[in-house]
């Protein structure tokens, strides 16, 4: 319940900052609204859900200043990456003389909803593919171009741009069929203690969300905003970079970006956070 105290405190500050404006009451909790579209940051879930009663977006745990950066695309620093992605979308590259646009046309149509159901089962590879893997498979197999490195500015720009086309849509990863065992494996990893500090993801993000751990207000660790602009990174970073950072914090040997373990974690967190709006590219601190 502590978290609501913080929310209330932050609202009070909002009131102070908006000096001269009408007093802000506790009912006027700011909403995540971008260009007039209001996003789902709270999803009611049944009692057997690990985050019952509600799955909550990480946006709700950030300060009003950080939140504000996400509310306005002109202020959101991640849009530099989006612009790079947009340029790359129509840039011809590789031996086949093609760009993404050559096959997919207008991204606003063809890429709508793509980010919302990642990672998605790939029959030929016999595993779930992340957005990064889909992009690189097009580059290699259809464009004859070099794959991009996971954390390269090109890949971050493209995942931000493609992800943006799903912004506002609910996260809906496939959970049945061959995805089920990956989600189960991700869940197992999520509850496994690692590192010299001997902590599991769930110790922080399930047992203690809404509480401060030193200077950081713990969220539920949801993934609906990735790739995300992080103030601490002074740039945009991938979801798997965030996973690595959390493992580094507890002095664990992190898994590699794109590893089966991180893909399984991603699949689990996508299913756990179902219903939250895609916020790509979000802003966090």
């Amino acid at each position, binding site marked *: 319940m502590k978290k609501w105290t913080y929310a209330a405190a932050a609202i009070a500050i909002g009131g102070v900052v908006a000096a001269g404006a009408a007093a802000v009451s506790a009912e006027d909790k700011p909403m995540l609204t971008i260009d007039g579209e209001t996003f789902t940051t709270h999803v009611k879930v049944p009692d057997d859900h690990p985050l019952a009663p509600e799955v909550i977006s990480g946006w709700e745990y950030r300060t009003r200043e950080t939140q504000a950066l996400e509310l306005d695309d002109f202020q959101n620093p991640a849009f530099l990456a989006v612009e790079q992605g947009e340029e790359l979308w129509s840039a011809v590259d590789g031996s086949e003389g093609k760009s993404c646009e050559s096959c997919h046309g207008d991204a606003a149509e063809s890429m709508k909803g793509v980010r919302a159901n990642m990672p998605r089962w790939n029959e030929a590879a016999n595993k779930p593919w992340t957005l990064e893997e889909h992009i690189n498979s097009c580059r290699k197999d259809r464009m004859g171009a070099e794959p991009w490195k996971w954390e390269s500015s090109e890949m971050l720009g493209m995942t931000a741009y493609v992800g943006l086309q799903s912004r506002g849509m609910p996260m809906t990863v496939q959970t049945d069929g061959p995805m089920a065992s990956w989600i189960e494996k991700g869940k197992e990893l999520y509850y496994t203690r690692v590192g010299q500090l001997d902590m599991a993801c769930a110790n922080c993000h399930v047992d203690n969300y809404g509480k*401060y751990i*030193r200077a950081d207000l713990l969220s539920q660790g949801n993934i609906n905003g990735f790739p995300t602009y992080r103030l601490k990174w002074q740039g945009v970073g991938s979801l798997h970079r965030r996973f690595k950072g959390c493992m580094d*914090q507890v002095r664990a040997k992190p898994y590699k970006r794109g590893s089966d373990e991180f893909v399984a974690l991603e699949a689990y967190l996508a299913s756990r956070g179902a219903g939250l709006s895609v916020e790509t590219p979000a802003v966090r601190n």
Partner: protein
Amino acid sequence: MKSLRSRYIRSALAAAGIGLFAGIALADEAPKYDVVDGGIPASLTGVAGNPENGKAAMLNRKGGNCLSCHAISALSDQPFHGEVGPTLDGAADRWSEAQLRLIVANSKAVFEDTIMPAFYRTEGLHRVADKFADKTILSAQEVEDVVAYLLTMKE
């Protein structure tokens, strides 16, 4: 208003990149001790703990970093006391020296499934980063020092 301000300071520092638990642990000998009646009665080193050093070890973000989870009124000059664990005010009224030594050395032996790290333990851990492998978070003497400081926490 105090708590309102601190929320902003916290985030500013977090943005400046001051993370949790970053850095290198300095620890030496392999953990060995006897647990008796839910505590470790004997000193780990035979050298009396120094409470001032203990306070420093508790504050050190690369060491105990206890404030990341615990609030301590006696250290209210320090910023950012965490909320994950209970306040340590009055800890010495609730626990004996032997119990405190076990709580710090291996919290899991006292609080089942706790998030609190075991500060003087190397076995039973998984995927420890290479540079921390087989090292304890605190040295035996640091544990003694921390216990000496905790023993001053009376209300």
